[in-house]
């Protein structure tokens, strides 16, 4: 492997990427360069620690979140997958439930209003008064 600078050679050496003569000539050069030798030793120590870092795992629900974001995103699907159809039944169901609740509420409210009118004492009195007046008029008519 051709290496045209000491930094590149050092990197290749640390990665076991120097072949045959290149590796031995680099080691010979290190013997004559105490500073470079110290640097190589320090870097070897660093790499032994960094390379021990464990693998990191994505969260278990990673795919679900990606799929959810794709479904939520707007615009046409370039791959022809109709993600919106997947969520459509839920949307339709939600609208129907909301409409049923609203209709039930309205009907209950109307019944309650009618009951309130029927139970109004002034209305009952007025109705009684009207009946008496009607009876009196009928009696007068008979006489």
């Amino acid at each position: 492997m051709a290496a045209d600078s000491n930094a590149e050679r050092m990197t290749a050496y640390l990665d076991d990427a120097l072949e045959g003569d290149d590796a031995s000539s680099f080691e010979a050069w290190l013997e004559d360069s105490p500073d470079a030798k110290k640097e190589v030793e320090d870097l070897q120590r660093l790499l032994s620690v960094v390379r021990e870092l464990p693998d990191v795992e994505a969260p278990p629900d990673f795919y679900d979140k990606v799929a959810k974001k794709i479904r939520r995103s707007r615009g046409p699907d370039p791959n022809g997958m109709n993600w919106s159809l997947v969520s459509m039944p839920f949307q339709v169901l939600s609208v129907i439930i909301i409409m049923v609740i609203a209709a039930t509420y309205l009907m209950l409210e109307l019944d309650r209003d009618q009951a309130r009118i029927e139970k109004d004492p002034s209305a009952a009195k007025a109705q009684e008064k009207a009946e008496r007046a009607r009876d009196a008029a009928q009696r007068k008519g008979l006489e």
Partner: protein
Amino acid sequence: MNAEDNRASQPSAADSASVAGSADAEPELDPAEKKRRDARAARDARDRRLVRRLKQGDERAFQELVHTYQDRIFGLVYRMIGNRQEAEDIAQEVFISVYRGIANYRGEGRFYTWLYRIASNTTKNRLKYLKGRNFHRADDIDESPAAHTKGKDGGPVVALQSVVHGPEATVQGNRLEQAIQREIANLEPEHRLLIVLRDIQGHTYAEILAITGLQQGTLKSRLHRARLALKVRLEPYLE
């Protein structure tokens, strides 16, 4: 998908060279190297099948691709950025970019390097954005990293115990891991990328050249500078 990602969809010369290099196999290969090449060929064939199915609109192929690469992409982003939540968001964005941009992927280079190019570009773009917002990734580093990591066999692992000896191995090992993570996240973005790709995830030079589009000499000298910068930052912990 941004312009940089679009460029990522074109196979680089280095990528083609590495593929061509693998085709022109040396006359003698040691068994370990042969095994690695066979594994890589099998992985590439599987990726090609998945990409073909994804282009045909097969949702399961996308799910399989995500499950195959989610840990590696999340690991790359997390090690570069140092914040779990931010890393998850970026990794999700990477796969969404893949999903939307798969039509632009012509299959001339390896899917694996194309995916990594998108991941590294997306992460670097986010780092620029976060830098403008004075983002500090250290908030996340105090959490126990061992809780989110796995050993080579998929089982739990206590980080860096083999490096730190003695009765306080677990505590010191976790502290050292946190320090390494913190100091990597303080390097320049390009240096972080090279350290993570080469020294943490163990990619070959050919793979890194294909991902980054660097020349081999530039890669080695830049990797050297990245290692020196990390060494200076970690000196207090390594003494």
